[in-house]
């Protein structure tokens, strides 16, 4: 028992030390940003990101640094990842919208209901759906244990059932978007989409840094993207940053 507590204590200490390291790296990158060394700041934020740890603030600052370094695509990708973690952060939305306006590409237009669904993360929708499900079935179970409560609980049960269906549908839509509707953000200056997934394939069209394109397919190190009606081409994965759909 003592040895287990020791291991747990050691883990906690290591976590604290690691968090302190990241915080100092983050502050150092912030200082570089303040001095105008945006590339240095971006590298500093990227170093933390390479550890696999993220936070909305880290991705937000990284997006800012990439934008200031002239990398619109990397900035958009970072802001979108930050938005996935904190969808109601108005600063992230503002900067994402601002950088999107700088991109030479058709504006990204999301339907209102998609926008509304995006106000919560997939896990938040999942949590709401699970809570509604639990309450619905617990209410149904309570009606079995106490039949006298059934008339009082009827409207509440129906309401909870409707909520369960609604939250479940929202979770389903978000999950489908997350798992099957990936998008690619172009991170190179002028990326040439080709008609096939080969270096020698004919040029199909050119897309600019920061363009956000839906991914239709992938083949090896290539992704098939659509750019407007009737324009389909293959981009190397080195030219894009792939993001989940929701």
């Amino acid at each position: 028992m003592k040895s287990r507590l020791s291991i747990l204590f050691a883990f906690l200490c290591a976590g604290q030390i690691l968090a302190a390291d990241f915080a100092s790296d983050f502050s150092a990158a912030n200082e570089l940003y303040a001095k105008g060394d945006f590339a240095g700041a971006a590298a500093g934020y990227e170093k933390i990101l390479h550890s696999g740890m993220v936070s909305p603030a880290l991705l937000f600052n990284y997006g800012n640094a990439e934008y200031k370094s002239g990398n619109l695509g990397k900035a958009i990708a970072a802001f979108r990842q930050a938005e996935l973690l904190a969808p109601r952060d108005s600063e992230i939305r503002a900067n994402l919208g601002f950088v999107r306006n700088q991109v030479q590409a058709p504006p990204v237009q999301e339907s209102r209901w998609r926008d509304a669904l995006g106000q919560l993360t997939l896990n938040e929708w999942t949590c709401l759906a699970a809570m509604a499900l639990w309450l619905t079935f617990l209410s149904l179970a309570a009606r079995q244990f106490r039949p006298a409560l059934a008339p009082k609980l009827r409207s509440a049960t129906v309401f909870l059932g409707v909520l369960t269906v609604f939250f479940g549908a929202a979770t389903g839509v978000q999950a489908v978007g997350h798992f099957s509707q990936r998008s690619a953000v172009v991170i190179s200056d002028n990326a040439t989409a080709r008609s096939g997934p080969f270096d020698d394939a004919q040029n199909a069209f050119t897309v600019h840094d920061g363009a956000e394109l839906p991914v239709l397919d992938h083949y090896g190190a290539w992704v098939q993207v659509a750019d407007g009606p009737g324009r389909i081409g293959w981009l190397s994965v080195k030219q894009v940053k792939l993001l989940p759909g929701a």
Partner: protein
Amino acid sequence: MKDYRFSIVSAVFLCLAMMVSVARAASFTASLDRDSISLGETATLSLSFEGAQPKNVPTPDVPGLEFVNSGTSQNVSFINGAMSSTVTVSYSVTPERTGRFVIPAMTADVNGQRISSQPIELTVLQANAPPAAAVNSGSEVAFMKLILPRRKVYSGETLVAELQIFLRDDVQNFGNFQMNSTIADGFVIGKSAEGTRFRTQVGSRAYTVIPLSLALTVTRAGDLSLGPFSASMVVVLPSQNQGGDPFFSQFFNQGEQKQLTVATEQVSAESLPLPDRNVPANFNGAIGDYTMTVTAGPTDVTVGDPVTVQVQIAGRGSLDSIKLPAQTGWNDFKIISPTSKTDFSDALGLEGTKTFDEIVMPESANIHALPAFSFSFFNPDDGQYHILTHPSEQLIVRAGGATPMPTMIAAARNSGPENPTPQDILPIKEKLGTLAQVPAPWVASPAFIAVQTVPVLAFLGALAWRKRTDRLANNPRLRRQRAVAHLIEIGIGDLRSYAAENNSELFFTTLFRLLQEQLGERLDCPASSITEAATDDLAACGAPESLLNDLRELFQQCNQARYAPVRDPGELNSAAAKFEKLIAQLQALKI
């Protein structure tokens, strides 16, 4: 032996022939599949090396032409015993402009020799619109039309042209649409938006029309021209070479791809300068058709306090270029340069609302009104200038210190959704926040899904419990059966303890009572009415004789014990065991 000699001679001859053929002089030729192409089309340049493998294959470099290596092939053939080998390196040649291009002689190292090709010419022509006769005959697979809404326009005006792409009804699919040239003399081409497709009859054929709206801004007065626009696309047409049954081919015809270059005709227009007469005094170049809304607040302020004047110009035109005109009558106000934002309501960026937020500060307590605000524009539709005026509004200005500080509307709005157009991104965050791994979606976690079955199982358990409870409530006999079973279970324990204590009296009293309870439940009669005679009723119910005999024996033992208590614990234990066996048989008895 003769055959053997013949074989050797043949082999030697063949080897010599091959050596001779290989030793033939190598050659290098460059050729194009076409001498002339339209801008937007692609030609193929083939560099053929005959007789040997080339080294250092040159890549052509001609300004205005883009060369992309499209592969290498090798062809070996025997003709009349002579072997020839040809290596062909192919390039896709895409012109960037029209004109005559010369692909110069290229030199390659072939079989140790430096060999040069001949220079070749490629003529790139501007794609032209097909003649009307060809269009009407239905022979054109695809063509384009460019339509201007008016031929007389005004300098500075914005208008919408329409580019219509016609695809013949046998086109199964199309893609890789790319505009090659968009010549516009006197126009600036803005955003574009695809409209709703429709079908139309042109001559003898039906065509699908894809309309593409283009926002244009006239940049100067005089004669203007638009086009020709040219574009390339790949269309899929029914294959002509699949043969077979025409009935089946209509279902299984995969079609063949064809690259097309299409072009529009040139459209000319006359651009007029804005009229010199009746120009409003504060006209500052706004062209279009607009409405204006002005709001101001707060209207009860102290000298020097800010009042936000919000001016919304809504309508159709070049909203981006609209500026607030200088206003007369605002001399008693300190004016801070307005901020603006534009919200477009159409995809072309020609309709919407431009909102100006101007902060003005009254500099004197003698001001009693916000002056009138006017905005003028030229409407190209009616060719006239228009003036929009918002009347003056009452404003209460108090001397300094007379009233508490009013609410800063402009500051309050900075936190709302109607922010003015930002000039830069928002600054970085100072705090790192909680670092964590990117959270995996719970919805894909089997453990999470398993946990969600708990409330369902709880409900199913409750439902089962409710059914069981209801069944018991509605079935008194079943209820009694269960109660007796419970009683017997406890009673057997008591019997064992009485046997161990050698308490004959309590043992047989309990035994008799348990027998009464069990038989009463079985025969569905009160337990108190059960005597040894109940065995007859049991016999009538089909109980086996052995069971009845055992029962009678136990009853008799109970009766005897009242008068002559048993003192031997072994006998009591034996009676208890017999009772247990008997009870099991009674409970299993189907009555």
